[in-house]
């Protein structure tokens, strides 16, 4: 029983991170209909920005080690990632707005390679130990071992998800986002500046990825420039699993995937972990191509 609870908690904190990254994929797909391969590298940048800010804070004797310092670091690295995301969209994707999806996809892969290899050049290839940016302690509840970081991860993720939900559902810009995602041409006809909305979407998705990067680094405190690959792919699978383009779907998909992964990790199939994630993806696509919460599009001739 304790073991099961333990797995549930591990699954929740892993799933929450996947959900944060998956939301970025899904939002970009919603407005631009393409898979932003560079998303997982923005996630990596988030972790590195947090690493360097934490070091700088430490040197200046800033509020390091408290919750306030942790939140400041988190917000800083989210802002940095948002800026990076907007710049990437501006320079690499916007000129290709009317080109085929394939062209944009390859460009995205190019951007991803650039960030990874540029990262290896700037940050170095060797893994770095990620500092404790939040006060860390281990709680023992009758055999159930919970790291306080896991609770922070869960709390931050839930806060961000609620904030996102509020922005998308209850603000003007959120309404505009939904309009662009529903029909970009019609949205621009009623006076919505689609380019601005797309920039905003990229900024928000990237900020979430950045937060995901920081939270991931808190759970697995060793960061390196290629760290985005695996969680990026998983989050992407999560987005498709939930139904790409659907925000609740991405959150649900992320959670499910987190559970399945931690569940598999404990068994002798653990080396097949990545393959199982893909097998789930393939199964979903074959039997319910629109994902769990996605809507089927009717093909018109």
């Amino acid at each position, binding site marked *: 029983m304790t073991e099961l609870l333990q797995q549930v908690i591990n699954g929740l904190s892993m799933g929450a991170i996947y959900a944060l990254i998956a939301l970025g994929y899904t939002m970009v797909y919603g407005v631009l209909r*393409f898979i932003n391969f560079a998303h997982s590298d923005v996630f990596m940048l988030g972790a590195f920005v947090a690493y360097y800010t934490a070091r700088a804070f430490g040197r200046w004797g800033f509020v390091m080690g408290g919750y306030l310092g942790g939140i400041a670091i988190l917000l800083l690295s989210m802002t940095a990632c948002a800026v990076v995301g907007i710049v990437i969209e501006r320079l690499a994707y916007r000129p290709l707005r009317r080109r085929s999806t394939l062209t944009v996809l*390859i460009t995205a892969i190019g*951007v991803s390679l650039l960030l990874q290899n540029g990262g290896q050049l700037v940050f170095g290839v060797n893994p770095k130990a990620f500092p404790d940016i939040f006060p860390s302690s281990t709680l023992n509840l009758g055999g159930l071992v919970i790291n306080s970081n896991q609770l922070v991860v869960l709390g931050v993720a839930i806060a961000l998800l609620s904030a996102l939900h509020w922005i998308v559902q209850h603000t003007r810009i959120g309404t505009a986002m939904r309009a662009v995602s529903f029909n970009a041409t019609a949205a621009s006809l009623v006076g919505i500046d689609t380019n601005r909305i797309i920039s905003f979407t990229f900024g928000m998705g990237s900020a979430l990825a950045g937060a995901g990067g920081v939270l991931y680094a808190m759970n697995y405190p060793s960061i390196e420039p290629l760290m985005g690959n695996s969680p990026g792919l998983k989050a992407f699978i999560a987005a498709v699993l939930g139904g790409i383009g659907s925000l609740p779907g991405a959150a649900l998909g992320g959670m499910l995937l987190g559970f399945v992964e931690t569940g598999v990790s404990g068994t002798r199939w653990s080396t097949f972990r990545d393959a199982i994630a893909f097998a789930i993806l393939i199964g979903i696509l074959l039997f319910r191509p629109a994902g769990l919460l996605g809507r089927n599009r009717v093909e018109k001739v």
Partner: protein
Amino acid sequence: MPSWLNRSQLLLMATLAVVGIAQSLSGRLDSYILSVAMGVGINIILASSLNLINGFTGQFSLGHAGFMAVGAYTAAVLTGRLAPQWSPLFGGQVFLLFPAALIVGGIVAALAGALVGAPSLRLKGDYLAIVTLGFGEIIKVIFQNLEFVGGAKGLNGIPDYSNLLWVFGTAAITVYTVWALLNSSYGRGFLAVADDEIAAEAMGLNTTRYKMVAFVVGAFFAGIAGGLFAHLNNSINPSGFDFNKSIEIVVMVILGGMGRHIGVILAAILLTVLTEMLREFGDYRMVIYSVLLILLMLTRPQGLFIWPTRKAARRQNA
């Protein structure tokens, strides 16, 4: 010219003859240049075979490296571990044993292609890309867990049977096969599927069958390329056949202009040589490569080698 040979077949024969001569002179060539040349040939096979799937049939696959891995491992096991049982069948002659191993590798890869294609080709566009990517990764993970072929460490000590003749001979045959397939009356269906799948289906073409054929043929040649690759590098490991390898091949097809025979061959040559030339920049190599890739996609997304030919102009007007 004898009546039973058409121009393209003649061209194939001539290429094979030239390759044969080049092979007999290869002893004089620098071994580094020789290995780069063979890398070029292998990439031509990979790019041309993927071009059949991605370019001509319009089915975006991101799992080509997976099929390459299947062929590489099969061929390497046949010439390595299973050689004592398998080699006597060919009287221990390498020039018989090696092509047989390559072909078996290709066939196993084609079977894998059929296995992957049957469920996934019902999907379109982005979704197909993701599923093929997923299958590619699954193939990689399976090899990582097969202790029989060395697990994550891979296989070492594969005999270096690959030479110019095998590599470029296969490349010529691949290009010819893809060309001849597309220019047959059956093969026009591939282009029809790429142009408009619904219209093709309405005209009574079995589109699923065409997609399967493209996939299986593409996987077959990818498997053979894998076998050649294994016997060129003497060692293989699963992570060499990951997503990035697939992307490399896709980039060749796209820069070559998606569904252009010559363009894709030129792109394969250019990219292979370019990656070799960038080696002297050391750590900056991949950074330069990615910047070039982005710039090329921004400036020439239709491919590097597209000239406005009469045929293309006619196709655009239609």
